[in-house]
């Protein structure tokens, strides 16, 4: 009899992503593809067919959570946090590996799941409670407490479509707060609502912890991870990169985004460690020379790379690849041949002045390579450092442009009236 509430073993989740369509060259080909299209599409929808691309949102994730532990999971967007929660909540099945859950599980990926605007507060409490896994008798018993906690006694028989967003969230949270699970799986629900609401959420989480319940908690809010959790995990690119005390893990995560990253383990953990020459440290600085993890669009960024070890050859290049949150490559740069700068064996500190940055708001990551152009890499440091673009308003309109819907960069543009 183990005292583990959650056992996760070699968990992997693979997704299929849309297939790239290739442009048709001739009319004949267009007609062929028009005719064959529905069939190809059918095979794609059915999850078969060639040419589909897959990616692993989670790969080889293994860890155990003891009863009463409060685990915080941090990591950049696209690291696999949401996928992990969805697998643990049984919303989506894993592709490989398994999860063992022992105890009554509640998962809370958002507050107010299933709320219907036409129904009254009272009706929604029952509906939402049932959806969250409460029995009717349990809801009846807790009903007064739920309403009192939400401070909505006067409006409980009003349809929730007439509620303010604050009232709505209060009622929704109040239902969730009255769950009594042995294991609680909770997404970033704390980030909604005002400060008062967040404090109450935190208070409720503290109660759960003190009652000895097991909590798995995903958050970007490092302060609450440090306050609440007994242990933390850092997830990146679908893998668990670190497992330790909340203090250590949140510091490590912050370092990924806010200051230079030092590669302490040498080239051993690199994907391409063919030589003794490797990139040791990376820093991002703003125009004023300050080390930074956040930039605004239009700013100039300086990438500083320090390498060590004997360089195998002269006249080599340093390169970067820029990735967006979805792990798609956005851009590429190289000392040569893009710019005809050649580094020599005695050089160990390389600077790339990049910008003005045309990037939209969001998080980005940089990977680095050193090599002689077109030859085998001496070192490749995948996702060495991340940064965020906090503000993108290149045309001073007062409206930011984010990369979730509007692409990753903004191109200079003028809008005129044609003749």
């Amino acid at each position, binding site marked *: 009899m183990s005292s583990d509430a959650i056992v996760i073993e070699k968990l992997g989740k693979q997704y299929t992503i849309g297939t790239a369509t290739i442009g048709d060259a001739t009319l004949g080909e267009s007609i062929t593809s028009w005719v064959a299209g529905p069939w190809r599409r059918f095979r794609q*929808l059915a999850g078969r067919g060639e040419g589909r691309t897959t990616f692993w949102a989670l790969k080889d994730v293994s860890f155990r959570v003891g009863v009463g532990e409060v685990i915080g999971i941090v990591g950049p967007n696209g690291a696999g946090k949401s996928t992990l929660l969805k697998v643990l909540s049984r919303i989506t099945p894993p592709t490989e590996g398994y999860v063992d859950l022992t105890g009554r599980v509640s998962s809370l990926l958002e507050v107010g799941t299933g709320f219907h605007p036409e129904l009254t507060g009272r009706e929604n409490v029952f*509906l939402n409670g*049932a959806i969250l896994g409460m029995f009717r008798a349990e809801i009846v018993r807790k009903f007064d407490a739920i309403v009192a906690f939400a401070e909505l006694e006067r409006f409980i028989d009003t349809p929730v479509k007439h509620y303010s967003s604050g009232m709505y969230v209060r009622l929704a949270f109040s239902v969730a707060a009255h769950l009594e699970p042995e294991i609680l799986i909770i997404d970033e629900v704390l980030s909604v609502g005002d400060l008062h609401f967040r404090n109450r959420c935190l208070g409720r989480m503290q109660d759960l912890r003190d009652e000895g319940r097991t909590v798995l908690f995903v958050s970007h809010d490092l302060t609450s991870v440090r306050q609440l959790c007994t242990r933390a995990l850092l997830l990146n690119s679908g893998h668990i990169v670190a497992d330790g005390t909340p203090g250590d893990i949140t510091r490590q995560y912050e370092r990924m985004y806010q200051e230079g990253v030092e590669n302490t383990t040498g080239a051993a953990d690199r994907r391409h460690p063919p030589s003794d020459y490797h990139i040791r440290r990376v820093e991002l600085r703003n125009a004023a020379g300050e080390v930074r993890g956040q930039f605004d669009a239009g700013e100039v960024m300086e990438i500083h790379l320090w390498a060590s070890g004997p360089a195998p050859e002269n006249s080599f290049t340093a390169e970067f690849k820029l990735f967006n949150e979805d792990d798609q490559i956005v851009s590429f740069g190289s000392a040569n041949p893009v710019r005809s700068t050649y580094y020599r064996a005695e050089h160990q500190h390389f600077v790339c002045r990049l910008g003005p940055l045309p990037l939209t708001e969001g998080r980005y990551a940089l990977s680095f390579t050193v090599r002689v152009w077109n030859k085998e890499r001496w070192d490749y440091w995948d996702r060495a450092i991340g940064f965020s673009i906090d503000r993108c308003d290149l045309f001073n309109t007062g409206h930011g442009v984010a990369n979730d819907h509007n692409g990753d960069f903004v191109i200079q543009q003028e809008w005129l009236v044609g003749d």
Partner: protein
Amino acid sequence: MAYPLRRTLRLEAPGSWQMLNLAELWAYRELLFFFVWRDVKVRYKQTVLGAAWAVIQPLMTTFVFTILFGRFGGMSKQVEGPYALHVFVGMLPWTFFSNAVASAANSLVGSSHLISKVYFPRILIPIAAIAAGLVDFAISFVVLLLMMAWYGVAPTPAILALPLYLLGTIVCAAGAGVLFAALIVTYRDVRYVMPFVMQLWLFATPVLYTLDIIPAKWRALYALNPMAGTIAGFRASVLGSPFPTGVILISSVAALVMFATGVRYFVQVERRFADVI
């Protein structure tokens, strides 16, 4: 999300053969009740005429078909008793069936928000949509009783068989509804095919006519339509006419096969829903 499961629950890649987990469905019976209750409540809250729609729809179609086929088409001569009553008795289970299939079919896509945020057996959603239609059925059944009183048709002991044929209609609606619901999640085109299928299905079912117009040698084939025997049996139990036993038997088997196929396909693909919806 799970109802109390003290023992260890293992989550792993779905095997190639999925079974309907009846124990789990039983554990979630209260949620099914809440889904039905929500569907019924919301339906009548958002409409002006509320429950009246349950009556207007079959009454209007009955009226139109009575004029069209009964009067102009001369079909009323082939039917014993008032043609309007004959059509309405068929229209009643048919309206329930076609509305239930349509709402079940669209129910999953309409609940995509729930499906991507919380776990429960997905089959509860289309089943609840079908169950909610029973309220409409009950209301229009009262209208049927009024109509029978108006035409002076008294129920015979055959009416005791009625629940059986109502059950048959539910089984048919569940089979088709669940199958369409699962198909629509992956293939949205099915949405556009459905009204057309239902239209054809209506004409392949003895709602407007009686089984007598089908030549005897084709009747066994005709009975492969699960709704054929169900509607014929429904009408026989209300109007006290003789039961077409052969057709009913074949249709019942067809209905069970359709139900099993629908549920089977549904449980096979349900774990994929959150990824494709």
